[in-house]
């Protein structure tokens, strides 16, 4: 139960405060306060530590706030080239990127499905591409013997090249060459030649002429 005297004292105090407030020029009073000095005396870190930022963030509805932001205007005001990109150490950034992991996440099949190969090929200058290809060098790297032995090309050649007559001719010529060289070896031994004889005329050895 409240004391009647206390109740009376409270009413008097409220009345006095109202009278003072009516008389007091609060703006003038605030103008006389050195806010900077007050702010310097406030331990802001301590204040911030007491604030539950997460609770604060949860209570804020960010979406309406974001809707009010004109991102285009914001981006227009940002000088990305000068102020942002120059500060970024791209090499350091790339060092931190796990490219393999990144590539593992790339669906190459889906990527290729999106590529219009025909359109891509239309943009390729094939003539220029072929000019840069060393076709002779490429052909020299082909092992024709292995190609003929391991592919159906052999069967095609065998069927398209003269048949039995050609086969007999090849065999006869090969045998004749073998006998030539057999006799030549014995003649060279009999003559005891120290230096080997030239095997072919100069132009044929150098590839300047075809036999």
């Amino acid at each position, binding site marked *: 139960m409240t004391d009647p005297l206390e109740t009376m004292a409270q009413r008097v105090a409220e009345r006095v405060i109202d009278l003072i407030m009516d008389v007091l020029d609060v703006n003038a009073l605030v103008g006389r306060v050195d806010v900077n000095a007050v702010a310097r005396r406030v331990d802001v870190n301590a204040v911030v530590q007491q604030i539950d930022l997460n609770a604060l963030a949860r209570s804020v509805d960010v979406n309406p706030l974001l809707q009010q932001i004109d991102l285009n205007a914001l981006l227009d005001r940002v000088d990305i080239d000068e102020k942002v990109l120059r500060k970024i150490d791209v090499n350091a950034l790339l060092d931190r990127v796990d490219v393999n992991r990144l590539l593992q996440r790339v669906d190459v099949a889906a990527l290729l499905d999106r590529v219009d190969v025909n359109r891509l090929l239309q943009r390729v200058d094939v003539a220029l591409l072929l000019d840069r290809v060393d076709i002779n060098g490429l052909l020299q790297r082909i092992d*024709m*013997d292995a190609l*003929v*032995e*391991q592919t*159906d*090309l*052999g*069967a*095609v*050649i*065998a*069927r398209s*090249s*003269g*048949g*039995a007559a*050609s*086969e007999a*001719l*090849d*065999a*006869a*010529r*090969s*045998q*004749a*060459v*073998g*006998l*030539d*060289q057999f*006799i*030549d070896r014995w*003649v060279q031994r009999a*003559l005891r030649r120290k230096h080997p*004889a*030239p*095997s*072919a*005329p*100069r*132009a*044929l*050895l150098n590839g*300047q*002429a*075809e*036999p």
Partner: protein
Amino acid sequence: MSARAQAALSVTAQGHYAGSVSRFLAYAIDLTVSSAVFALALAAISYIAKIVAGHQISWNRSNIVVAIIFVAWEFLYFGYSWAASGRTLGMAVLGVRVVRADGELINPWRGYLRALVFPLSFLLLGLGFLGILVQRERRALHDLIAGTAVVYAWDARAARLRFLAREAEPTARQPSVTGDVPAAHGR
């Protein structure tokens, strides 16, 4: 020596100086063919004379006229062949050809010159041909005079591919396990 090794040897020999066996076989073929053609021509002339004149002409090989005609025919056969393509029929069969001493193709006149001096190798008791065996460039006497040489000229590379293809073909002929019908080989 295996057939494969033999074919490989032939590939490396392409463009090289042709040896005695190839050249002798080529000449034997040429002599056979040219003599056969000459004999056929004489027989044809006899037949025509019999029809036209009513009596048969007997060709005696020892007759000087026949001998001269035969020599002229041989000169024409060899000379024209060498002048036109650097090879006779026999040389084409054996895959050899006449080139200039430096390996370039011969001029027509050099082909005829070679045919003209060719008998010299015979007339010296066949010693003119000894150069094919002992001369460093396997050149006979008539080659030395005409400034020619004989080289292997057959497409040994293609021959080797054909050879390899024939060896690989039995593998290609085997029917696959999926039951495919093997391709027909019409040789």
